[in-house]
């Protein structure tokens, strides 16, 4: 406990020491005086002989300390005091680091959760996904399986200790009216067992639950259980209604388990065999052409992925033959049988986000990295300017005996202190930013769910960059700032000394680098923003404003197929009667809905179909469709009420279809049949009109495919789910209550989902919006940081040259030439930075090409704009210090000496 007492008695120890040394000196002086020396000389001699008193005292005190820790603590205390002394600089520095580190942490955390983090299951690195290589596209393995194919793999494989399949689907909890969807999962019996997930409550599904003809059972996610059942144990055993079918709840999964699909989560799990109950007659369990599930296995101990692949491929011919799709061309069947299996590492789970957002996230990581670099440069130049102001302090410390290493350590401690504080603040920004990012990548239909809880990887990353940035912006000022010529510093004059000039040089160099990096960012921002704008202003072929889409299912309404047309007719009538609804129509798929229906066609009297012909996409519509969507008719007529089951089958085609299948002739009046070869009962459709191309596929970048529309009234077996479109005179969301009432008036069991067409279009631009918004934000931030950096350096330069400017003005220089002098400085800095930045962007923007639309990566206009913006901001930032230089009063400047 000795050291403990020392902590409290130390002040006394130090005081004793101090007095003792004073007495020592006095005694020496007295002795010399006694020996006959004049007192003044004696004092000097004693001091000289004693040496450095402060240092002696400090060394003696150190005996009582834990030197490294205590001097470190002292450094931190002193650093904190120094930072508080210049609150403006500190705030700017802190904020720029916090933003820089926050942005980096947020993006990294997203990257981590989407790509890097292992699934929270037993030994995730043993998991492997089973996929198929197609001979025609060996590099793009097919990941979805049919149920018969999965059952073959399950029953025959020998390389996995366990293998399972699953499929995601939303279930509707509501009985009619507006749909209340939950994220559902069909899983095979071994799903939970193989993953090694234990129940939080009750039990999870086992192999016995997944037998053909099963009654079904439901497992809830922990979150859903908390939310809907308040975490009550009584939930176990109670029934849950999914799509109108009742299942008993048997258990709850643990809180940290969100499934094997990263980016999504499930709320209810039911066994695969229950698909027969939910889908009824349309069940896919025996459908050899229905691709809807993903397969994963746990490798047996000691089996490598390569061995597993080889083992699966021994069985491949047998498995594939047993599951070969029926009712397709023999050549397709042959292709199918020649597929091979492959295994893909799956320890980090699977993610559609990964495919879609890896590149954008990597691009953003580069962007935020650049921002952080700019922030570092900024702080480095601020610290450099400050260390110039601290020259005297540093000189004093040197002459008191401090070593250079000690001073460098002090300055570096300050930097790290700053960056650590910035990182802590940055973590807060990151939490907020992550939530925002997840919201940005979520669409109306796909709500992205990511487990963004703080984890070791992210914290390590943040701590790492905090220290790295602290060193990055601290090293230069630390070394430069402590290279002080004692004499000139103490004299306080001669500001144009050598070290002054070279510090200058590093300050300028930093600003030039900053300008270059900012330009790089701004060019990228310009490209992303223009891409986004190009896509926003793209001619979609329809008018997305003021249209409400109502997706409907009458599956549980018990309406026979023959009565569907009249039910839909009544719905259209009721919807059309809603006030402020301009027009209404119905179709199978709305534009950019994500689902498409396509097939080959055979043209009668047109060009002979060749194997190179694209497939044609189809949609059935009611007569009001084109006017509701505002898709212009180019030739012929639209579909109308006279097109019925009893009239000849007709179709309206788009421009692309007209041009592709009927080049150089008028397609109106021509005929085609669906299928290649068409089924025996396929209708022969006559083309009666041509409409403008519309975007239909989920990406706006793709040109419109050939497209044919035919009347709903001529469709023999209308499906039980379809879409209504309502063009409104007001905000489309405001008519939703009336739509609910109108639909309930026809059939209470019809389920409804609402979205505006505008939102549906917007949702296809998530990636572009993400890149454009974030890069614009960070580009602006970079510009701001550069302006601050430039301002700081210029203010410093002007203050250093006040004396010189005063002399010039005293010798007759006018303010204008002083302005030229100072701004000339800025111009050189800018020119150097811009040149470097332009070169770098010429090389770097190639990497952005894949994200761009309607603009080239090396777009001169974008570069010109970026340079102009940079110049404008830079000139503004440096004008303020320059004006101060112009107003230097020669008298004051000279008297200053």
């Amino acid at each position: 406990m000795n050291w403990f007492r020392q902590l409290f008695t130390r002040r006394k120890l130090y005081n004793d020491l101090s007095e003792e040394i004073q007495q020592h000196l006095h005694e020496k002086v007295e002795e010399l005086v006694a020996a006959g020396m004049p007192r003044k000389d004696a004092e000097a001699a004693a001091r000289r002989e004693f040496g450095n008193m402060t240092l002696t005292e400090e060394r003696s005190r150190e005996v009582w300390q834990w030197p490294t820790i205590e001097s470190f603590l002292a450094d931190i205390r002193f650093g904190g005091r120094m930072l508080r002394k210049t609150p403006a600089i500190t705030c700017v520095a802190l904020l720029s680091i916090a933003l820089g580190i926050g942005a980096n942490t947020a993006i990294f955390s997203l990257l981590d959760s989407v790509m890097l983090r292992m699934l929270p299951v037993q030994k995730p690195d043993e998991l492997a996904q089973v996929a198929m290589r197609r001979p025609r596209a060996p590099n793009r393995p097919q990941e979805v399986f049919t149920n018969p194919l999965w059952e073959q793999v399950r029953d025959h494989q020998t390389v996995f200790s366990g293998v399972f399949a699953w499929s995601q689907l939303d279930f509707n909890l509501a009985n009619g009216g507006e749909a209340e969807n939950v994220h559902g999962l069909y899983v095979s019996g071994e799903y939970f067992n193989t993953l090694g997930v234990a129940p939080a409550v009750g039990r999870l599904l086992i192999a016995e639950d997944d037998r053909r003809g099963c009654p079904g059972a439901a497992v809830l996610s922990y979150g859903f259980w908390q939310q809907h059942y308040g975490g009550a144990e009584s939930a176990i055993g109670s029934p849950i209604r999914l799509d109108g079918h009742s299942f008993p709840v048997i258990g709850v999964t643990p809180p940290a388990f969100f499934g094997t699909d990263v980016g999504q989560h499930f709320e209810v799990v039911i066994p695969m065999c229950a698909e027969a109950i939910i889908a009824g007659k349309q069940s896919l369990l025996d459908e050899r052409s229905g691709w809807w599930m993903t397969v994963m296995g746990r490798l047996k101990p000691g089996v490598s992925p390569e061995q597993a692949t080889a083992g699966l491929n021994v069985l491949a011919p047998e498995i594939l033959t047993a599951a070969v799709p029926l009712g397709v061309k023999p050549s397709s069947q042959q292709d199918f049988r020649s597929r091979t299996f492959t295994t893909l590492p799956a320890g980090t789970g699977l993610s559609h986000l990964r495919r879609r957002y890896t590149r954008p996230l990597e691009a953003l990581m580069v962007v935020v990295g650049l921002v952080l670099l700019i922030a570092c440069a900024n702080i480095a130049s601020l610290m450099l300017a400050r260390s110039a102001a601290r020259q005297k302090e540093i000189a004093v410390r040197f002459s008191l005996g401090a070593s250079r290493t000690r001073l460098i350590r002090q300055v570096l401690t300050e930097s790290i202190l700053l960056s650590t504080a910035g990182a802590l603040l940055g973590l807060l920004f990151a939490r907020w930013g992550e939530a925002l990012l997840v919201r940005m990548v979520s669409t109306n239909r796909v709500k992205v769910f990511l487990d963004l809880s703080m984890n070791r990887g992210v914290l390590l990353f943040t701590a790492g960059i905090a220290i790295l940035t602290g060193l990055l912006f601290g090293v230069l000022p630390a070394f430069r700032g402590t290279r002080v010529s004692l004499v000139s510093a103490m004299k306080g004059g001669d500001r144009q000394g050598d070290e002054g000039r070279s510090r200058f040089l590093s300050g300028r160099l930093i600003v030039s680098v900053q300008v270059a990096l900012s330009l790089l960012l701004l060019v990228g921002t310009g490209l992303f923003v223009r891409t986004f704008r190009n896509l926003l202003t793209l001619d979609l072929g329809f008018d997305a404003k003021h249209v409400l889409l109502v997706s409907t299912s009458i599956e549980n309404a018990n309406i026979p197929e023959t009565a569907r047309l009249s039910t839909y007719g009544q719905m259209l009538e009721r919807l059309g009667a809603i006030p402020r609804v301009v027009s209404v129509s119905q179709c199978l798929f709305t534009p950019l809905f994500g689902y498409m229906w396509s097939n080959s066609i055979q043209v009668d009297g047109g060009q002979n179909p060749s194997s190179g012909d694209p497939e044609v996409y189809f949609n059935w519509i009611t007569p009001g469709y084109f006017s509701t969507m505002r898709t212009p008719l180019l030739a012929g007529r639209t579909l109308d009420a006279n097109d019925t089951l009893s009239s000849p089958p007709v179709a309206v085609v788009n421009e692309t279809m007209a041009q592709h299948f009927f080049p150089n002739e008028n397609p109106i009046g021509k005929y085609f049949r669906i299928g290649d070869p068409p089924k025996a009962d396929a209708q022969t459709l006559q083309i009666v009109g041509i409409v403008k191309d519309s975007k239909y596929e989920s990406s706006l970048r793709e040109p419109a495919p050939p497209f044919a529309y035919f009347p709903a009234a001529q469709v023999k077996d209308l499906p039980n789910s379809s879409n209504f479109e309502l063009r409104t005179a007001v905000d489309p969301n405001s008519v939703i209550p009336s739509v609910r009432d109108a639909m309930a008036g026809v059939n209470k069991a019809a389920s409804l989902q609402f979205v505006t067409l505008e939102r549906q279009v917007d949702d296809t631009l998530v990636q572009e919006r993400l890149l454009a918004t974030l890069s614009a934000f960070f580009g602006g931030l970079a510009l701001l940081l550069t302006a601050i950096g430039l301002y700081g350096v210029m203010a410093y330069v002007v203050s250093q040259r006040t004396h010189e400017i005063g002399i010039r003005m005293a010798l007759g220089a006018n303010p204008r030439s002083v302005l030229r002098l100072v701004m000339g400085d800025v111009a050189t800095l800018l020119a150097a930075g811009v040149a470097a930045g332009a070169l770098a962007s010429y090389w770097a923007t190639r990497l952005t090409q894949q994200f761009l639309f309607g603009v080239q990566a090396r777009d001169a206009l974008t570069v010109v704009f970026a340079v102009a913006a940079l110049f404008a901001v830079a000139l503004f930032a440096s004008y303020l210090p320059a004006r101060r230089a112009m107003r230097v009063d020669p008298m004051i400047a000279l008297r200053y000496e």
Partner: protein
Amino acid sequence: MKTSEQRDLFPGALEMMVLRTLKRQPLHGYALVQHIKRISNDLLQIEEGSLYPALQRLLKEGLVKAEWGISATNRRVRVYKLTPAGVKHLEREVSSFERMLDGITRVLAPERP
């Protein structure tokens, strides 16, 4: 102050001499410097810059004690006294030093014919 002819003492030498001097009689810092200088015929000159840290080390290790007192010249001084632990430490140090010195002397002795 050091002249170029003076050598650095080896580690521990200063402490040993301080302890030895204090064993004879308790002294304060200034007197210690003077005493060692006199005894060594001006061959050894203790630097204040080293003495005070050394005294603090000895204090910390409990080998000496310090007390404020009044000197012969009527000055408030801090007098250092050897503790029993200090006595033991000194004995150990001296005997190990003597062994070392013996070794060094043997090595440095002119070779016998």
